């Protein structure tokens, strides 16, 4: 499981190691920086430098050609009266609220189904994982848009059941739902992580519960869910952060204006349009910081809520 482990002190020099060890420790100095030099260069030039610059730009009016003009918090204030910005926030929040639970539920469902020792398990696992790899590509977005367009596959199938939608990709009521389904289709990555978590649950717990007369639902709710709660938390965190940043499928399906009728005007699409469509670089930078702020806040809230529902085994309450 991918938990973020800080550098362990155990890695360091053993206690009581004499001056020889200390000498070696300083030996590594230059070598360490040498090995790390690409990363240090990258983090300074491509991460920390740009971060500082974009924070500065977010307080300016800048069109890429004239000198940035300091306008304080204007960019941030302006967002709240910008109808398209508000729209993009609404679209994105709705998408995250739908896509994350749907995708995680689907991933958990498939993982539960595949979590039994049967023939072909590995093959099935790989097959369900496949769409995860291509799901973010332009190709799949095009396929999705076509498959869900008026008179295409999905429409035809629904018509058999007497449901008329007029195609999802052109219908404002369904366009976002279509992208939610695209997200759920890529259930592979969280599913594989769920499976790894399910394998860790001790079988004896189920046997003991069965002896006590607990039914399948009870066993799921009282054993499986709490035991895999760290994995649920990890997937929830990753999917939430990821979903806020969806771009390719939204842009390919809806273009820079989020067609139809702005229903696919995702936050990142609008940011791109502001920054690289009409060169409002200062405004786009402010939008990016707002996104960072909100995603950071939500991450913090998730971590806080985790204390209430995430149980780590070996932890005594």
């Amino acid at each position: 499981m991918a938990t973020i482990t800080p550098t362990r002190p155990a890695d360091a020099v053993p206690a009581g190691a004499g001056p020889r060890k200390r000498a070696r420790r300083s030996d590594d100095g230059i070598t360490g920086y040498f090995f790390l030099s690409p990363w240090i260069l990258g983090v300074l030039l491509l991460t920390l430098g740009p971060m500082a610059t974009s924070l500065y730009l977010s307080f300016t009016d800048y069109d890429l050609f004239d000198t940035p003009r300091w306008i304080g918090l204007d960019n941030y204030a302006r967002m709240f009266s910008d109808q398209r910005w508000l729209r993009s926030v609404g679209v994105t929040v709705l998408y995250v609220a739908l896509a994350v639970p749907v995708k995680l539920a689907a991933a958990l469902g498939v993982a539960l189904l595949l979590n039994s020792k049967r023939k072909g398990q590995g093959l099935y696992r790989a097959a369900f994982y496949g769409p995860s790899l291509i799901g973010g590509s332009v190709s799949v977005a095009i396929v999705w848009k076509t498959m869900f367009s008026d008179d295409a596959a999905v429409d035809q199938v629904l018509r058999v059941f007497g449901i008329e939608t007029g195609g999802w990709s052109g219908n404002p009521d369904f366009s976002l739902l279509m992208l939610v389904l695209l997200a759920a289709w890529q259930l592979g990555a969280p599913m594989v992580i769920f499976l790894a978590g399910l394998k860790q649950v001790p079988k004896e717990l189920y046997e003991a519960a069965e002896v006590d007369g607990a039914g399948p639902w009870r066993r799921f709710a009282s054993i499986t869910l709490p035991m895999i709660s760290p994995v649920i938390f990890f997937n929830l965190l990753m999917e939430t952060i990821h979903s806020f940043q969806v771009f390719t499928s939204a842009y390919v399906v809806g273009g820079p204006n989020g067609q139809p009728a702005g229903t696919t005007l995702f936050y990142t699409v609008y940011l791109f349009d502001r920054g690289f469509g009409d060169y409002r670089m200062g405004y786009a930078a402010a939008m990016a910081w707002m996104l960072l702020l909100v995603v950071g806040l939500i991450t913090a809230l998730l971590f806080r809520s985790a204390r209430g529902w995430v149980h780590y085994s070996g932890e005594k309450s």
Partner: protein
Amino acid sequence: MKGRLSRVAWHVGVLLLLAVVLYPLVWVVAATFKPSNEILGDLRLLPTEPTTANYERAVDGVNGVGIGRYFLNSGLLAVLSVVGTVSSSALAAFAFARLRFRGRSAMFAVMISTLLLPFHVLIIPQYIVFQRLDLVDTYVPLLIGKFLASEAFFVFLVVQFIRTIPHELDESAKIDGAGPWRIFWNIVLPLARPALVTTAIFTFIWTWNDFFGPLIYLSTPDKYPLPLALQLFIDEASGSDFGALMAMSVLALVPVVLFFLFFQRFLVEGVSTSGIKG
């Protein structure tokens, strides 16, 4: 008897689900062999008269540039990205996992926090810098980060893997007089191969599918990788040619699918141990 019945039920259930999941792929492959007017408005999955006309038009490419060119561009970007990411991540990971120097923990913490940073806060200044340096419409902005270990996921993945390699190996090599470079090259690198292979495969596939970077930095169709060529195809008047568009989409997916078929064990395990996003 009961066990057998439940086994059959399980397989039927899984296969039904799988059919739903794989349906879009089957549908698009079938669609590419249909005449364009049959792709919409027809419930039949299989083409009545299979045709390769869509592929012929797809191979002709878009905007007077054949699809071969776009494949070459995508391939070049992907291969260079793999070389850059694997080498720079391995160097950085070795330093983080095995070497002692001042500020290591602090830098490791910075590396971990860049994992969660939305790249949107970086793209605007990065773009401005590359524009000032006159490097827009070249591959430099798309590749430089790969050579500078900017993908923290992979640095982290390799660090975690190197930590599982027994320290005794380095110690005995040290006693034999090996320096850090030898230990890195002759001991740690060969043993870290699974992590490096995972890194290479994911880098290839992500670069191959990447749309945002090329969309921002490239403006000459000659230099476009496949995802941009596809978008261009939609934007041009020929965007209504569903058949050719589908065929091009399928062709663009072929390398990814091949990678997946050959390396799925690495990919699936890479995900479950490191939580890489697909």
